[in-house]
């Protein structure tokens, strides 16, 4: 199939995906689009929002639309790593007791790590290998996870009691951190219509895992101009207050900047965004579009930033203005 046709098909399928998801999720177009971008570029997504905004519903719908295996892990303080990754059980086989690996819920295409910040750091860390290397090691045995694999985690920003903030290493493994805003009046009305009156439609699947993997390969080849690439890299470097290029706002409120994973995330997702926007090249606006979800969870605010209530989104917005 020619590249042009592939791209056209990709665009169409993504649009159809969005349409199908919209059947279950009212509004939140940007969140849906950004989630799909992360999925198209092999990334994990951290969804943050107050309870009841449809985070879990969104992930479940996506899994349904993409026709991928889905598993949900409800993170609680007593959740153990083995509950996530799986464990070796003693089973009788041919009259003998032998250890047999019983895969955990992480062995799925889409894993919903619900309220991930409620689990202890030990359990949270059990996800690290799976999220980055797409493997799970139990005892001395390493098991590959099925592809495509992605973790869609949710967390509640306001319930701090009994929660364990995600460690930086784990945060960095999320491609995007998406914030789910409260719906508007119109959207809320539609939500009521769908849920209370039961007028909602069931979303249908649009593509399968193999198609998704092909799309990922295609998106990796989308050309990006040097100037655009440099802009993305400067943005990432600009998050480091110790660097000379850092804007004043970063120097003032940021303690630690984004890692090279952030640059990879920006460029990869910008490529996907360009294609979804009908282009075969990355533009500056693609970088700007993906910079916020790609960087916001990678900035470590300093005391001034935290005490003044400065948000990462504000700092990134100022950085983008300063870089232009």
């Amino acid at each position, binding site marked *: 199939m020619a590249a042009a046709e592939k791209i056209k098909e990709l665009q169409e399928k993504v649009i159809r995906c969005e349409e199908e998801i919209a059947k279950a999720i009212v509004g939140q177009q940007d969140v849906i689009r950004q989630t799909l971008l992360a999925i198209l570029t092999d990334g994990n997504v951290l969804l943050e929002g107050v309870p009841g905004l449809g985070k879990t519903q969104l992930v479940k719908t996506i899994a349904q639309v993409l026709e991928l295996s889905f598993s949900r892990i409800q993170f609680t303080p007593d959740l153990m790593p083995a509950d996530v990754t799986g464990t070796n059980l003693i089973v009788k086989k041919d009259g003998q007791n032998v250890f047999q690996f019983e895969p955990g819920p992480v062995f799925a295409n889409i894993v919903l790590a619900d309220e991930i910040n409620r689990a202890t750091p030990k359990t949270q860390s059990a996800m690290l290998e799976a999220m980055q290397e797409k493997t799970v090691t139990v005892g001395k045995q390493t098991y590959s996870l099925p592809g495509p694999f992605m973790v869609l985690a949710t967390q509640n920003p306001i319930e701090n009691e009994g929660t364990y903030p995600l460690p930086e290493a784990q945060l960095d493994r999320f491609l995007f951190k998406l914030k789910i805003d409260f719906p508007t009046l119109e959207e809320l009305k539609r939500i009521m219509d769908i849920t209370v009156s039961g007028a909602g439609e069931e979303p249908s699947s649009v593509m399968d895992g193999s198609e998704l993997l092909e799309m990922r390969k295609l998106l990796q080849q989308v050309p990006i101009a040097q*100037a655009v690439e440099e802009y993305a890299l400067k943005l990432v470097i600009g998050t480091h207050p110790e660097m000379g290029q850092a804007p004043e706002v970063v120097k003032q409120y940021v303690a630690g900047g984004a890692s090279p994973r952030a640059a990879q995330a920006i460029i990869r997702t910008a490529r996907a965004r360009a294609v979804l926007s009908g282009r075969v*090249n*990355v533009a500056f606006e693609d970088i700007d579009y993906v910079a916020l979800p790609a960087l916001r969870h990678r900035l470590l605010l300093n005391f001034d930033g935290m005490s003044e209530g400065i948000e990462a989104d504000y700092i990134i917005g100022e950085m983008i203005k300063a870089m232009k």
Partner: protein
Amino acid sequence: MVQRGKYDKRIHKLLRQVRKRQLVQKEIFCLSIYLAVAAGLAFALNLAAISYPIYQAAAYGWYLLGASLLLSCIHTFACWPSEKAAAACADSAGLQERCTTSVELYGKEDELSLLQKQDTLRHLEKLDAKRALPYQWYLKRFACASLLLAAFLVCMMIPSPAKEEAKRIHALKDQVAEQQELVKDAQELVEEKEKDGTLSRKEAEELKDTLAIARKELSQAKESHDVEKVKERLENKLVKQLAQQTDKELLQKLQKLASGTDLEANSEYQRKLKELADKSHVLKKARKELEGLDVSGAKKKKLTQELEKALSDGEVTAMELSEALESLQDGEAAVARDTIASQLAQGGSGQPSSASPSQNNPGTDSGQSPGNSSGKNAGKAGSKSQGNTSAQSSAAAGQANNAGNGGKQAGNGQNQGGGYNTGSSEGKESSEEAVQESVTVSGKKIGQDGNLTGSRRQGNSRTEKTQQTQGWAGNKVEYGAVVGEYSDKAYARLDQSKVPSQMKDIVKEYFSSLE
């Protein structure tokens, strides 16, 4: 070099249009800045010219404006936009980095690259550059430049004393520069003369000092008449210094004649010697009279020129000097002039006119018509440059000053008695008997006795015809005026020079025979 595909070439062609617009835009930008700056400078300059003397401030203002136009063009072409810059410019019109990416993908033919280029072409072809990339006119800058330009024009039109003063100063500078150039030429000439030995080191130093002082004075001149004064002073000094120099030259010539190696003493040689002596005598007289002459610098200059002419001709007769003196028009000087003229005429009355210095007409008739200036112009063929002749002429005038009254013996020697042969019997006798003898010095026969004619106190004058042409044909001078002096100098010279003893004997014998 990347080999471009068909899409690349099309994109390149379409971007050319964008580049042209970029170039024009750059020119507008540069022009707005340069013009505003130049107009501001021109205005400031002409504003200052109202109060301070600035020569041709208006012209400089126009030059500045012209230069601003030129510089803006140069700047524009120096910053010729690259294809990447043009692509970026096109992208700024809403093409979302399509052109930039395509330019970077020149030469790549993979599927996605081709797809991207096709996409770029589609958008580029739709691009209306005139609308999408309109020119920015920088109206504020141009308005500012226009205001400054108007102010400049107004300032340019306003008359002021400072502008007149600027013109006057400029004229003075030109005058000074011109004079400085002349002085510089003179310095070079002096150096040249010093090198070729025409001037001694001391004389050259004196002249250089004089010229250096003149240059300094010229540089300090505040007014035009200052320059004139310096000029006049310089001329006077030079005339004086060169006069001394010429006296020496003349003396050296005479010495050379006296101690010449050609010892063929014939009548021609003696006649020439006598002519020289007469010349010296008359020059001294004229010089003396000129010393006492109360005439203006201009008159003296004129007289000097006359003398210079005569000297450059190589023939200075009493009559010619008389004529030169008569050319003075000054009323007060008239008496003195008449006196000089009469004395010169007196001095020359007993003398035959000098032989012509011309090689073609070597004084054939000299002596037969006293005071006659025949052939005087014929000798101009060998005259030197203006500067040299001036020096010679002045020297002629100055010679009389230094030489004393010996030359006057022909007419008044009995009473005055000064000079080279003061009180000598020769002076009296020549006065009483009006003995004149022509001495023709033939360059080719100097030193041969056969060339000398006549004898001492012969009492009559004679004319020698010679077929031998020579540049220096000799002059008619009184015999007695030169012989004694020449003899002494010849003897002295002989003692100083390395001359074979036999030759010395011959020379001494010759001079003793003359006495």
